[in-house]
Structures are given as structure tokens and as C-alpha cells.
């Protein structure tokens, strides 16, 4: 024990730490570029957004030290407690939360706001790791599957009610992790099938989709019915096929219903935008401004603090969700591709680390970290470059905001800590 404490940096994966530092540096520069021109004075202003972000980065250092000093076993042992604390914090929002931009996602104490959903990502990752670590737990078992689903659904539902659809979506990405840990493939296939149906409903409309899938089903049944070798199969399965078709219809109808009646107009606009349907100018404004800014960067960019669109605050939310546009404008294709490549290497490194864990808890947690970063990376950058519907979630280490920075830092360094202990595990 004493030995561990004296060498808290022993066995640390320096590559990850180095990339973390690089991300923080690049991210802070981007925030400085976006927010510095709004200050009146030429001098460095601690009260500005870039100043605050620097303070948040400073606060990270003791947090990292604490995370690294705590014994590895501690995280596994108290995972359920962390999970419950996370849920309580999410629940507490309904009583004490502060409404910002239409979502009650923040606690506010004297000018400092905290977003518990950022911490809930870490606690949920720990909890699912602990659940799967149980030797009697198997994802082949239906009951256990339900347990895992429930564990993930509770926080995501609480977040969806805030409403913060973007963050809720991140919790759905844990299903990828369950696939790695033995969740039967057909869940993923069903998921993909549902996603295709979902998009198809929005694109071609429910009526045509029901008719065309009906025709496909009919043709399939006829094929089985009259093809001699398959007759047995037909007798065995025709009811199942019909049931699948019926549930497809129900799904299509409910998608249409949800889209029309549950989702808000701005959600509909975002989907329509990506699907190439016409929407009003307001809805497409952000997306268009983002794309023009990125395109204006060209191959090598306009240079640090030289992006006229960034300096002119042309993109709303640029310091948070749209931070990548300032990199696009000021550092050009060279800058953006470097950031993309860095993220790819970063996520691959996390997967590699997860794979080298002997303890299942550490491995599952590692995958949890990977899928969270991956989802943020895909959705955020995908949205900014116009290939994913507008879903507001931050780009890790780049977007302005203390909660997400601390959340991601904790998430990452718990993994680093667990990784230092891999040789002592069973």
C-alpha cells in the first residue's frame, strides 16, 4: 500500500496522459480564440470564458492526483454508491435545478454551474462494470440482460426528462459495450434494423413503408411456401415472420407518432435538415454558418486569432458545441485532420488498454470510457461537419465548460489508475 502511494505515477500510461495534455492545450487555444475578442481590454482577463476555463483546467490537477492516489479497489467497491449518488444528483435537478436554454440540467451555486449528467457518465460506467464483473452474471441470460438494460435506462431517462436528448443518447452507446461483453448479436442487428426503419419512415413516410415491407414479407413467405426444400422451414416459422412484420408496422406507426407528436419542432427540423428535406432558414442557420466557416479555412487555415468568422462570433454556441468550427477556420484542413487523427488514436489506445486488463471490471470500464469518448467524438464532429443531425453534446476537452471537463478527466484518469494496477489483478 505504502509503496503504491509513494509511486502514484508508476505504471501510468504516459501516451494517454500526453494526449490528454495536448487536447487540453489545443482546446484552450480554441476557446481563447473564440472568446478573447469579446473582451474589451487587451490584457488577459481572468473573468472571461477563457480565463474561467483555465481555472477549470487548474482544478483538474488536484482531482487527477486524488483519483490516482485512491486505491484501485475503491472504485469497484463503491461503484454502486457512486451510481446512486449520480442518480440522486439527477433526481435533485427536478427540485433544485436551474433552467438554462430550456433544459433543467444544471445546479448553480454562486455563479458556478455543475452539470450532473457529465458525472453520471462516469458513475454509470463504473456501475455497469461492477454489474458485469459478477461471476454469475451472463448477458446470454434474459433476466441479466434486463438488469443491465435497466441500469443504463434509469439515468438516460432522467436525463431525457431534463430534457437533454444529446446526453441521453450517450447512455445508449453503452449497448456497444454490452455487445463486447457477450450480448447476443441479434440485439445489435435488431437495433440496426430499427434504426434503418426509423430513418426510412422519416424519408418515405409510413404508408409506403408499410406497403413495401408488406410486399417483401409476402414474397419471402411465398418463396418459402413453394420452394420444396424450404417447406419445413415455412411450416415452422411462418407465424414468427408474420409477427415480426406486425411489430414492424407497430414500430413504424409509433415512430411516426413520436416524430409528429412527441418531438419538438426543432428536433424535427434537425432530422429534416440531414435528410435533405426543406426546413426554414432559422433551423439551417447554425449548420450553414458552421459549414461556411470550416470551408473558409481552406487547406492551412487563416491562422490563430485570424479567423474572421470566428472573431466575428458568426456561429452561435461556438465556444461549446461548435468549437470545432474555429479549429476548422483558423487551422484549416491540416488542423482538423490532426484533431480527428488524435481522437482516433486516443480512442484506439483506450480500447487497447481496456483489452489488456485482466480484471473484467477494468476491461468493461475501459470499454465504457471508449464508447463515451467515441460517441461524443462522432456526434459532435459529425454534427459540425454536417453529416449527423444537430445534437448538442460537447467535444471532450475542447468545448468550454467545467462540468464536462472534470467529468471527462475523472472518467479518463480512473481508467489510467485501474490500468496501473493491471499486473496485480487476477
Amino acid at each position, binding site marked *: 500500500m505504502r509503496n503504491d502511494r509513494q509511486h502514484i505515477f508508476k505504471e501510468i500510461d504516459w501516451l494517454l496522459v500526453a494526449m490528454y495534455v495536448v487536447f487540453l492545450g489545443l482546446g484552450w487555444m480554441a476557446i481563447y480564440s473564440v472568446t478573447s475578442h469579446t473582451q474589451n481590454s487587451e490584457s488577459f482577463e481572468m473573468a472571461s470564458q477563457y480565463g474561467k476555463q483555465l481555472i477549470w483546467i487548474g482544478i483538474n490537477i488536484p482531482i487527477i492526483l486524488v483519483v490516482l492516489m485512491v486505491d484501485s479497489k475503491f472504485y469497484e467497491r463503491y461503484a454502486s454508491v457512486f451510481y446512486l449518488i449520480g442518480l440522486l444528483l439527477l433526481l435533485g435537478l427536478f427540485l433544485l435545478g436551474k433552467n438554462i436554454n430550456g433544459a433543467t440540467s444544471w445546479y448553480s451555486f454562486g455563479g458556478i454551474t455543475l452539470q450532473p449528467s457529465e458525472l453520471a457518465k462516469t458513475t454509470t460506467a463504473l456501475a455497469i462494470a461492477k454489474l458485469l464483473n459478477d461471476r454469475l452474471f451472463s448477458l446470454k441470460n434474459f433476466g441479466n440482460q434486463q438488469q443491465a438494460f435497466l441500469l443504463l435506462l434509469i439515468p438516460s431517462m432522467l436525463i431525457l426528462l431534463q430534457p437533454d436528448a444529446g446526453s441521453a443518447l450517450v447512455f445508449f452507446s453503452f449497448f456497444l459495450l454490452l455487445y463486447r461483453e457477450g450480448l447476443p448479436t441479434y440485439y445489435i442487428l435488431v437495433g440496426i434494423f430499427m434504426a434503418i426503419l426509423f430513418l426510412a419512415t422519416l424519408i418515405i413516410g409510413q404508408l409506403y413503408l408499410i406497403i413495401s415491407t408488406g410486399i417483401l414479407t409476402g414474397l419471402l413467405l411465398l418463396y418459402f411456401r413453394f420452394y420444396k426444400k424450404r417447406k419445413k422451414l415455412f411450416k415452422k416459422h411462418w407465424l414468427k415472420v408474420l409477427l415480426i412484420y406486425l411489430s414492424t408496422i407497430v414500430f413504424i406507426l409509433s415512430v411516426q407518432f413520436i416524430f409528429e407528436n412527441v418531438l419538438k419542432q426543432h428536433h424535427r427540423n434537425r432530422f429534416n435538415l440531414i435528410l435533405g428535406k426543406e426546413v426554414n432558414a432559422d433551423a439551417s442557420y447554425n449548420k450553414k454558418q458552421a459549414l461556411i466557416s*470550416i*470551408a473558409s479555412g*481552406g487547406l492551412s487555415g487563416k491562422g490563430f486569432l485570424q479567423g*474572421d468568422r470566428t*472573431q*466575428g462570433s458568426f456561429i452561435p454556441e461556438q465556444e461549446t458545441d461548435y468549437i470545432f468550427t474555429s479549429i476548422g477556420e483558423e487551422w484549416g*484542413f491540416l488542423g482538423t485532420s490532426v484533431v*480527428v487523427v488524435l481522437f482516433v488514436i486516443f480512442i484506439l489506445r483506450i*480500447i487497447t488498454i481496456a483489452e489488456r486488463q485482466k480484471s473484467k471490471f477494468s476491461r468493461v470500464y475501459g470499454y465504457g470510457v471508449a464508447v463515451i469518448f467515441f460517441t461524443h467524438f462522432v456526434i459532435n*464532429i459529425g454534427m459540425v461537419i454536417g453529416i449527423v443531425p444537430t445534437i448538442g453534446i460537447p467535444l471532450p476537452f475542447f468545448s468550454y465548460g467545467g462540468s464536462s471537463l472534470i467529468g471527462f478527466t475523472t472518467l479518463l484518469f480512473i481508467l489510467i489508475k485501474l490500468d496501473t494496477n493491471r499486473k496485480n489483478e487476477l
Partner: protein
Amino acid sequence: MNKSKPFYITVILIGFLFILRLFYLQVLDNKYSISIIRGATVKPVYEYPERGYIYDRNGVLLVANQSSYDVMVVPREVKNIDTLELCSLLKIDTSYFNRQLKRAKAYSRAKPSTFIRQISKSDFAYLQEKMYKFSGFYIQRRSLRKYPISTAANVVGYISEVNNSILKKNPYYQLGELIGTAGVEKTYEKTLRGVKGVKYIQRDILNREIGSYKNGKYDTISISGKDITLTIDSKLQEYGEQLMKNKRGGIVAIEPSSGEILALISSPTYNPNLMIGRERSKNFNKLYLDSINKPLFDRGLQAMYPPGSPFKVITALIGLQEGIINLNSSVKCYGGYRYGKRSRAFMKCHCRTMGSPVRLNKAIYRSCNSYFADAYVKSINKFKNAEKGMDAWSKHAKSFGLGDYLHNDLSVGQPGLIPTADFYNKYYQNNRWRATYHISNSIGQGEILTTPIQLANIAATIANRGFYYTPHIVKKIKDKKIAEKFKTPNHTTIDKKHFEPVIEGLFQVVENPRGTAHWSKVKGIEICGKTGTSENPHGQDHSIFMAFAPKKKPKIAIAVYIENGYWGSTWAGPISTLMIEKYLNKETYRFALEKRMLEGSLEEEYKRQLKHLEEEKDKK
């Protein structure tokens, strides 16, 4: 490791997809790429150089600039101001204040709009000191034209705001900028305006300026406009305008030795100061829509009239050149010229020579129709057929700058008409026509049309004994030469020797007691002139006079048209000689005549014509 494979592949694929998309967006051309200058973030701010001044040939300032001050407002920035104080400063009431502010808000909250136009200079002086109190309001300086002596409006022209149709043709301009649209302002637009400078200003999303774009790397400085000196003599011009009051018509005076236009008068004209100021659009519309007086129509350049008797000089010169008349050949005139068998084929003549032989000299100073009709027929019949004869004739006539645009530096002009063989082939089918069919051409009637400036140019050509310099309006541009084409003489097809006898005849018009314009003789100046009385379908004959003086070394050639002014000797003759006198002697001595000309009016005649026209309309 097997189970992790799909994860590795997915992450790498997504990364690859993103880089492809970014490559498309940032490296390849696509619909999102826009140029820097057209982008929304950079605003070009133009710096307008001062427009060049316009002077007359003696350095008298005709067109200058003056500052005007508009009170501007940016509604968004109007905060905590003392409305009552501002209203009393601007001399407006609060309801007007509220109305204007509402209007500005309706246009834009963030962009400036004009609150009060053109406040006086004295108001500006004390307003400027107090403006700081009223956030959101500021004073903008604009440059306006100024016409110190209010003369030659038709010559200098005017400037207007650039509209969409100009914008399409000329990308240099921005909507609302000023451009010369008439007169010298138009033809010398580039010289006068200079080149505007531009500064690129970086803006933010709310259109606030946040500094220079790229430290002024793309900025350019303005090049100031050049001053222009006209060939116009403002004293002569002013005098001519006064003489033309209450008469319609045009006067063009040219310096024969250079082709410089000394005066270019069109009447009725307007005060150029109407084209500036708050009332400009109202005034402009009034002038533009006046279809009776047509003040914006430059009669000196655009009005095509039958030249009448002055054209006889051309007939004579062609006759001499073709050798079908000479100084001794004569015609006997018994009150007219019979050119066919029928009684209709008879051209009347008022020369009252009673059958005595009329030679060239007398034919000119008595303006004998018969003599020139005879010459015309002979010069065409000299050729094998009428077609060849006609073409030879019109070639001679055109060498005087007739039947075509003058191709000079004036913004408007008309070609007039000199008929050719083709013209008559179209007119009379199967080419069945002869010289006598259009015998009226000989005396400047018939198909022939000229503008006053062309007629003045004929006078200048005769004064020069056979050549002319293209009449032009600009004498000098600061450190720039005038076009070479205005310095090269245009020679006519008539030999120099034929001019002297004609000039002698023109001299007799004024000098000889029986000359048609003897009445207009000026003591001490040898004037050569020719009266004209041109029939026209609109009403009373036009009064025409063409002259140059002095006879030996001509300094001025002039043409005067007075619409419906009866005989050439009634109005045009006296006015021409007064102009000549004024130009050569700087003063006039024929006070009674001058007074009659200045005060005389043809308005009654014009009213009668209008009434007649309306009656005819009613009949239909």
C-alpha cells in the same frame, strides 16, 4: 482480441470518413466556399474622393462641391437621451421625432438610416458640439454639387444616385453612389469622379465593427477626381440664355480655329441648382415630365430641324466643285422656279430680282430659291443617272459633318439626315425618281435635317475655308491632353478656292443694303451670315441664322434656331449678331434691339400651337 476487432475497425472507419468529409469541405471547391470579400464578415467601407470641379474657358467656376449634413440614427443605440432637447436643437416637434424613429426602426435596428436630411451649415456648427449627448445619433457629411453661377445646365449635366440598371452595366458602382448621368458629368464621369478607395472592416455577427481586416492588407487609397476646363465662355453662355428666354430653340457657337464650343444654349432650360438638395427628386420629375417645354432635351444637340436657306451655301459649294455653276453663270428668276410641266411643279421664290440675271453672289444675299434649285438639278443631272448624281451630292454634303453623329465628347447628339440614292430608292419604288422629285433639298427643306450644332459646324467649316475640327466641349483636363481626334482637321470634299466667292456672298447678306440680314449689321465687325426660314409641319416657320465673324480671321461661328420664330431676320439674325458682338467686343451698343430680343416672347405663338394641337386631337 477478436471481439475488439469490430471496435477498432469502426473507429478507424469513422475517422477516415470524417477526414474525407473535411477534405471535401476545406480543400475541394464546394457550395460552402465563398470569397473573403463577399463573405458576411468583412465590410468594405468606401472612401469617396472629391469630385472634380468644372471651369469655363476663362477659369470661371461653373460646378463646385458643397458639403451637406444629414442627421443619422442607429435605433439600437438610442438610449437615455433628452428627446425634448434634441427636438429643439433639430427644430422639430416630438411627433415628427417619433415618426422618424419609428420609420428608422422599421428599416433596421442595427443599421444607420437618415433621420433628417441636409441640415444647414449653421445648424451643423452648433449641433456637432452637442451631438455627443445623444447616443445613437450622429451627423454624416455628404458631398453635393454646387453651381455658383447657375448657367449652362444642359452642358454640365447632373449627377444621380446609381440605380439597379446602372449597377448591372457597371460593376464599379454600389447602390446609392453618385454617377454623372447627363452632360459633361456623364461623358467625363471617370475623370471627374476619380477612383474611390476602400477599407475592409472586420465585423461581428451583430454588424459591429471590430477593426481593420488583415491590418489593411487589401485596402486601397482613393485617387481624387480631376478638374475640367470647358471650352464654354460662361459670359457668352449666360448672355445667350438670357436672349433665349421665352423662346424655344438652340444656339451653338464654335471657335472655328479649334472646334471649341463657345456656347451651347438650349431653351427652355433650367436652373442647375434644382438638381441638388432636398427637393431634387420632385424637381427632376417636374422637368422630366414636362413634355411641352422639354427642358431636359438639349435642342442645340438633339433637335433635328430642316436647315432652310443656310443650306443653300452647301448647294452652291457642291455646284462650284462639280463645275456646273461658276461666278458668271446666272439664272433669271420670275418669282419662282418651274421644274416640270404641271402647274404644281413650281417652287416659289421671294428674291424679288424681277428677271434680272442672278449670279452666285446675289443669289446668296437675296436668298434666291430658283438659283439653287437650278444648281441642285444640274449637279445631279451631271451624272449618267440620278442615283450616281445623288450619291455624289450627298457625299459632298456629308463631308461637312452632316447626316451622322459628330462623335465628340457630348453626351447626346443626333445624326440629322442627308438622303442618299438608297434612301430615294426605298422611298420611290423601282428607282423611278429624278433630281426634281426632291428639289426642296436644294434650299434646305425636303428630307434634309440638321441639328443646330451641325449648322454651326457648317459655319465654322466655311470660316476655315474648307475644313473643321470636331466641335468639342472640354478644353483642358489637369495633366491630361484632350483627345487627338479633336486636334486633327476634317477636310471637306470642296476645294479651298470655291469658298471665297461664297463667303463674299455671305458677307453681302449682312453688308449689302438689299441683303436679307442687313438689318442685323454690327458696326465694326465684318459678319458673314445667312438667314433661314424653315417650313415645318408643326406651325409657324422656324427662324434660323448661321454666321461667322470676322470675315478675315474668323473667331466665332454660330447657328441660332428659334422655333416658330417667323423669318430668319426676325429673331435668329439679331440674336446671332448680338452674340457675335458680345463675344468679340465684350459689349453691345444696339440697346433697343438688345432690349427687344431680351424681352421678346414667343409664348403666345406656342400657346396657339398647343391649342391647335388639342383641337385636332378632339376632332379625331
